[in-house]
């Protein structure tokens, strides 16, 4: 294979890569405003629109008192047949922490370690396939802030 052909192939592969990489929504690209919002309510609005989530069907597991705000383990669980799951908090400069796209036949039992500047509330939103939204709010006490501390 000559060099030109080889380079051409490489370029073609590069062009194809982003298209085949994800099967669903890249929330960072499609909803940039959701990641800039300061308050959870605004971030939720930017991500999902004007929704009124029901407070049921979602559980958050996290320590009540987190000694180190730099690494707080948070689990979100739900049995709802869902499209996506998002978590927010109100202690940091911006609210959005992470958004999961639930794959087909997926299990909602997501664990993640997050940072929080101080005590605050964690909000989890589950977007059901039935078009409804479900939520859970959990307050957490943080004794040593972990955002830039």
């Amino acid at each position, binding site marked *: 294979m000559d060099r030109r052909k080889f380079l051409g192939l490489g370029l073609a592969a590069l062009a194809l890569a982003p298209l085949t990489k994800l099967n669903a929504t890249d929330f*960072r690209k499609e909803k940039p405003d959701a990641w800039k919002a300061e308050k959870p309510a605004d971030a939720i609005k930017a991500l999902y629109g004007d929704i009124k989530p029901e407070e049921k069907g979602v559980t958050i597991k996290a320590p009540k008192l987190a000694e180190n705000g730099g690494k707080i383990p948070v689990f979100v669980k739900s049995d709802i047949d869902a499209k996506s799951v998002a978590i927010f908090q109100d202690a*940091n400069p911006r609210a959005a922490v992470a958004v999961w*796209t639930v*794959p087909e036949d997926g299990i909602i039992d997501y664990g993640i370690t997050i940072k929080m500047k101080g005590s605050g509330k964690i909000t989890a939103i589950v977007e059901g396939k039935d078009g409804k939204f479900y939520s859970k709010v959990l307050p957490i006490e943080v004794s040593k802030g972990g*955002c*830039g501390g």
Partner: protein
Amino acid sequence: MKVKAKEKDGIVKVKVLAKHQNIGPEEAEKKKKEANFITTVVGKVGGKVVYEMNGSGFMSKNPLFKFKFKGKKGDELEVTWTDLKGESKTKKAKIK
């Protein structure tokens, strides 16, 4: 990056430990470093996506991700993270 996947009764439990500074913009200013954090984590088995997450600078340093999916022993799980600068790392692990 460390990836561990273990199957029991058709459910695969996965632990992913990504080695990343995960610095948000405010923190970057304080520490005089460039803001950079993991923006996506994708897990695949045989080309099928089993895990997909979009993250922010508010995940911890060296974040730990845990998740479950329906799968079987012997399959290979491939986990890839990508950060704000576009760098990415992929690690494969056999489901035990």
